[in-house]
């Protein structure tokens, strides 16, 4: 299992955000994407998901281009961007259920409740997401990490808007994922300790 990026370049409008970004991520590996605001961190993550097309270069999953076989890649991928992807009018539980079904993973209510408990918002389970605070919404979105079987997690600023206790919980979930042989690509401005079998850094300069 391997994610390889080869010579990626990203053009937004007529501005070159970055070029020749290459890396290889193995099972159990953690990749930090660092850079100033506007240096293209989020664009790189979206590009790795296949939401954006690279100007030059390719992304390979297990030796195959992700454009060639998107379904295998996407069933191994969990992406959490700036937006939480939650519907305001649905409850936290309903939101989790919908995203689990969309990802084709079977989860029952008990599992979802325990996921919400892990990240400390079980008491909001049956409230519409509309009434939750920013940090609580983020935590509902992050609860997906306890339900997924995806190997590759791509997380854009997962620690933003979280309180200290939740950051710790999330970091330990990431540790566990990596020790189970998962991979994580992450952007963050917080200094959070995550242990992995191998840690790499991609630094984008604006």
């Amino acid at each position, binding site marked *: 299992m391997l994610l390889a990026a080869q010579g990626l370049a990203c053009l937004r409008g007529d501005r070159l955000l970055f070029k020749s970004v290459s890396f290889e991520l193995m099972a159990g590996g953690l990749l930090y994407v660092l850079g100033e605001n506007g240096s293209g961190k989020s664009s790189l993550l979206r590009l790795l*998901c*296949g*939401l*954006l*097309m690279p100007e030059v270069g390719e992304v390979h999953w297990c030796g195959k281009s992700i454009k060639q076989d998107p*379904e*295998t890649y*996407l*069933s191994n*991928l969990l*992406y959490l*961007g*700036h*937006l*939480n*992807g*939650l*519907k*305001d*009018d*649905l409850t936290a539980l*309903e939101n989790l259920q*919908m*995203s689990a*079904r*969309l*990802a*084709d993973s079977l989860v029952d209510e008990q599992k979802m409740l325990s996921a919400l408990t892990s990240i400390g918002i079980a008491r909001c389970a049956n409230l*519409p997401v509309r009434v939750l605070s920013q940090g609580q919404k983020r935590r509902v979105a992050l609860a997906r990490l306890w339900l997924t079987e995806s190997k590759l997690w791509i997380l854009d600023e997962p620690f933003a808007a979280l309180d200290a206790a939740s950051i710790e919980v999330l970091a330990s979930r990431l540790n566990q994922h990596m020790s189970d042989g998962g991979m994580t690509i992450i952007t963050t401005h917080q200094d959070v300790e995550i242990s992995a079998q191998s840690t790499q850094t991609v630094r984008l300069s604006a």
Partner: protein
Amino acid sequence: MNNAWLTVLKRDLLLALRRRSDVATTLFFFLIVSSLFPLGIGPEPAVLSSIAPGVLWVAALLAGMISLTRLFAADFEDGSLEQMLLAPQPLTLLVTAKVFAHWLVCGLPVVLLAPLIGLQYALPGDALLVLVWALLLGTPALSLIGAIGAALTLGVRGSGLLVALLVLPLYIPVLIFGAGAVAASQNGMSAQAHLSLLAACSLLALVLAPMATAAALKVSVE
């Protein structure tokens, strides 16, 4: 695969149920627009029944139009659209589910309400029946074609007007056959040909529109 289709359908219906005002807006728009004509033109049954097919179809087109802009916009803003794009299911399938939900919520009520409005226009019984059939066969095409416009204008400023400009010309065949069906039955002819053509429009749209919509969504999300 089917599971995901049902999930999206269920999700959109649930959302519509929670935000009933959105659905009511469409219906009231249809009701009011189609009620304005008899008030403006006067209660002459012969005149009313001759303009009825066209007016009712145009009202149905416009009512569908105002709800179209919301088809993908809400999902785009809260990020659930990108999650759908990243689901391991074919996007065309999910698009079909969303469009079907849109039709159930905005198209079907118009179909069911139409005979009631038709009475205001002094339409005879068999013309009312043809009107319902024509709307039932034609409105799916409206939702399907409209989805392409909604996807193309995603995230564009003033998208509401732009959708109308893009999509209304494409509605012309459906309007002609739909209104033609009712007019034919008023004139004592068979509406069969018009209804078949309407069904053909819908089937053709069902095959082509989801693919175009999916492609447009991918571009818009970039």
